[in-house]
């Protein structure tokens, strides 16, 4: 067991409620810990690898940032200039100066391509590795037909300690859930902005007025009062089955000191918090680092407003790129400084890129045929450029890769065979990716 951060602190009430106890599981803590240890899958020598997935919802304009086309006409290349990075020969956008000095820590895949330029289905494709099929209901929250990467990871590898194995912050992407892998693989979503001064994970602790003796009473009462808890009826109805599973996990979370500390950003030095940027994106990335240190296997950071149909350049320059510059550079530097970059995969992508040709509103529209993805850490070599786009970044020129391949690479780095199968509740085997190929050129 390489992760040692999931100790439980003997704090008054919390411990005495007994993890899972309020829910009729009634397990003493030592038994619960033993159960968790026993539930751990064995034989994965990559058990200490974690995954931070930064999802830029709306679609990052990679032609303006990580795959610039200075020789294209101005109607395509736009007003931004490129700048050199700490990797000789590699240039990125001039408005990402801090990121440019961490270029040696990540690689750019410049030939990502897929066939769907609609937000909902494209999100699903990139987040799960599966293009949605018939009956896909984009409005559902979650809308998963297949599990998100984080859910698959949680399902295959299980929790590391009392902290949830898969966390979304500050919100869950609509395709961020577990589909047929069930509630145990669904993410815990923070539902609060880590950059706000009074940030706290809502309802993590019992109200102060309720002391430990009363928590015990409540636990005991629950076991007798709730006639459906643990019943066949509870299990025979998907809604109550889910609720019971989530309640058990909620109690685990309440009893985990590691989790409570990980959520407490005030334990970080001000200087480091400033380095990440005091923005939702920046503080979410910082919390992501704390969470993987505490045992979470996959943290998805969702950040929106990248759908720059209007005034793409102004919005990028004034708002989005400065936030991204701080957050990504600080994340890579911080992970490296702590010596955990080698064990932490970081992927940054939107659901697609944006049109090579600038539209009438000085914006760029959806473009899934070719865009770039950033990958670093966890066994990915830094400083490389993988794949190539054509002269206007409209199509891959070399080595096209799809979302399946992205997922396969992440799974591979976590010790999950991309072609191994999960079973749906009705016994149907489904592969982790649909024939995804590991992108070997990225690996160190």
């Amino acid at each position, binding site marked *: 067991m390489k992760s040692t951060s999931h100790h439980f602190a003997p704090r008054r009430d919390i411990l005495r409620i007994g993890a899972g106890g309020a829910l009729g599981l009634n397990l003493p803590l030592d038994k619960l810990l033993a159960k968790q240890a026993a539930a751990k899958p064995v034989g994965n020598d990559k058990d200490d690898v974690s995954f931070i997935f930064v999802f830029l919802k709306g679609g990052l304009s990679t032609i303006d940032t990580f795959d610039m086309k200075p020789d294209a006409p101005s109607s395509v290349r736009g007003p931004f200039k490129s700048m050199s990075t700490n990797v000789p020969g590699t240039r990125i956008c001039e408005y990402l100066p801090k990121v440019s000095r961490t270029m040696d820590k990540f690689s750019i895949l410049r030939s990502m391509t897929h066939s769907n330029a609609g937000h909902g289905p494209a999100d699903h494709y990139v987040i799960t590795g599966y293009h949605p099929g018939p009956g896909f209901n984009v409005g559902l929250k979650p809308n998963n037909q297949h599990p998100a990467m984080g859910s698959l990871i949680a399902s295959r590898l299980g929790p590391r300690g009392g902290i949830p194995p898969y966390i979304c912050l500050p919100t869950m992407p609509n395709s961020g859930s577990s589909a047929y892998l069930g509630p145990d693989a669904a993410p815990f979503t923070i539902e609060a902005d880590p950059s706000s001064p009074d940030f706290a994970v809502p309802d993590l602790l019992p109200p102060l007025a309720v002391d430990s003796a009363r928590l015990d009473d409540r636990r005991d009462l629950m076991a007798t009062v*709730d006639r459906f808890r643990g019943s066949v009826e509870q299990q025979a109805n998907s809604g109550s089955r889910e*609720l019971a599973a989530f309640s058990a996990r909620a109690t685990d979370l309440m009893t985990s000191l590691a989790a409570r500390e990980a959520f407490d950003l005030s334990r970080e030095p001000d200087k480091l918090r400033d380095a990440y940027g005091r923005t939702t994106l920046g503080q979410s990335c910082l919390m992501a680092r704390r969470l993987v240190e505490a045992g979470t296997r996959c943290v998805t950071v969702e950040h929106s407003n990248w759908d720059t149909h209007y005034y793409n350049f102004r919005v990028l320059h004034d708002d989005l790129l400065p936030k991204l510059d701080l957050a990504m550079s600080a994340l890579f530097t911080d992970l490296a400084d702590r010596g955990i970059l080698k064990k932490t995969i970081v992927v940054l992508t939107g659901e697609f890129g944006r049109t090579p040709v600038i539209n009438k509103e000085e914006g760029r529209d959806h473009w899934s045929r070719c865009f770039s993805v950033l990958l670093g850490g966890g066994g990915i070599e830094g400083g490389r450029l993988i794949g190539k786009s054509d002269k206007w970044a409209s199509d891959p020129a070399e080595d096209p890769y799809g979302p399946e391949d992205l997922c396969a690479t992440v799974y591979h780095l976590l010790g999950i065979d991309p072609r191994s199968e999960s079973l749906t509740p009705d016994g149907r085997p489904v592969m982790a990716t649909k024939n995804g190929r590991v992108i070997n050129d990225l690996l160190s």
Partner: protein
Amino acid sequence: MRYFRQPARTALRVAVFLTFLSGLQAVDFLQDVAPALSRYGCNGSSCHGKAEGQNGFKLSVFGSDLDADYAAIVHHSRGRRLMEAAPGMSLFLLKATGEIPHEGGGRFAKGSPGYRLFLDWIKGGVPFLEGEVREAKGLRVEPAERILGQGEGQSLNVFLEYVDGGSKDVTWLAEFHTNDPGLADVDENGLVTIGKTSGKTAVLARYGGHVATFRAIVPQPGEFGQYPALPARNFIDTHIDKGLRDLNIHPAALADEPTFLRRAYLDIAGRIPTASEARAYLADPDRKALVDTLLESPGYVDYASLLWADILRVDSDALGQRDAYAYYRAIHSAIAQNVPLDEFVRKFLTATGPLPENPAGHFHRVNNKPGQTAAMAAQTFLGLRITCAECHQHPYDRWTQEDYYGFQAYFASVSPKALGANQFALLANKPPTAKHPRTGERIVAHPLGETQPEEAASGDQRPELASWMTSPENPWFSRNMANRIWARLLGRGLVEPVDDFRSTNPASHPELLVALADYLVQHNYDGKALIRLITSSHTYQLASTTSPANQNDEKNFSRALFRRLPAEVLMDAVCDATGVPEKFTRSAPGMRAVQLWDSRHEHYFLKLFGRPARVSPCECDRATGASISQALHLMNSPAIEAKLAHAGGLMARLNETFPDDTRLVDELYLTCFARYPTQTEKDQATKYLHRKAAHRQQAVQDLAWSMLNSIEFLFNH
């Protein structure tokens, strides 16, 4: 080749194919080759059908533009795709068979029927059309329905039926698709294989834009003893009973009075009964009278208005506070008057004039574009999702772009005009036409699925649209309305999702759906009449108790399903059970959550439990799923704790009013669960209160806390 690995069946297919060839009909593009392009997946949206094509060869997606497809194959790339002099050397065939590298792999083997079809077409001089178009009227699958055991197989045969009465076997050119992989799988030759689960499902066959379905009924295995027939109180029970018998699923017993009481309150009035209401009903239960009372209660109007406001999109972000409120009031007052559903829909569809006087017209303002309003009208009133057809033929239904733009044209005539003071009037002064995005042709307003009229009618055509929609002959309107009402009461639509009527998404009980729709028509679209009918059925009144014979079923109405209370209803239930109302900002004191008209009202609890933002007309916008955050909130929320501990709240009152523990426990159970406690429950609770007598008030709170966190409270069951 893996595509033809079943020798016996291939032989049959070849035989059929040879018959077809000897039928003296030459192979042409329109009637033979085009369907084959779909059959072999060439024009799929991830292959040559995607917007940019694939490797320089582009087909229209799902064959929506056959002229262009013909040109792409025959003429483009300097005609090098086909070689009439040596047909077998055509690039098209070499690629399709995988003889030269093809990203899509080999689609059919050399010498296979598919190969010979294309070969004969090339040999015949690549005609676009030979002779007259023989007009097809639809597709037929044989068999249409069968009861099959787990692991069994069934070959399907597909026939194209012509208007002239003839038919043609097109099995080998049809595409097959299953709605439930695992329950029934199907290969490309139409061989259905049943998996290891049971239930009902549909396998679809498509050919040339037509769809037909095979329904597989797979009974669950096992011996459960004598089937306990579902007593037939009305036709609903007869249909449900037949479905259960077919599947070897047993119905549950009738629900007891307290269960029915709570369920009826939640389903009809959107709230839990108070302790005194529960006590009164249990002393003198009458299910029919209860339903009648609830249907006339203010709760019915508030709750029904809330659900309609979701799908009609009362969205203050889109409309502004004032107009969103006016729009909501239009819904609320129509429901209060129990306006028949056809009239209700007409009111929104056809609204015109100054909006302050005709607030239902905000229906036409909540979207920016006529296309969005049209799509919303189709989904909300007909249960049809037509937006796929905005850009191409709907891949899973019959809708073409002509259907889509013809429907949109009804709404193109309407636009809001500023009246000053930020007020608007709806004017319908533009022509009811739309432009086909590909051909540029003018498309005249016309109903879905009908041919476009030669002459454009002038003026506002929305009244005609409303008449078409709500006519008893319209196959969607009454079924959609009946299905929505059914789903609200039973927790699941006969068509599911409720607003996704599609030829490829058949109802679980098609005959029942038609019968419910007819009932609605016969009762002049009175929604309350249908609620009375459904709630009086034995099916609605079943217990949620499981048995081995129905514990795996959540789709066939063998027992009442557990349904988590919707966000607003749950919020109100917490307030009612603690006796402390929620104070909503910018709202009058005493306002209940189900009465909130503004979906944008900041509220953590409501958001957490899935209140919809009303950004789409989809019922799915209202989330019903659970999460860790919900569980944490119910256990630890300071807001709920404050209600339990409130000095003027119910727990304090109970503690003072009922020094007798037994009576207090009765009252608490009636309040939270709408029933009296069992003897065991009563003993346990009184023993607990006795033990905690020194802190009785707190003990009552802790008891109530455990009740609020229970499945019995959180779910309608």
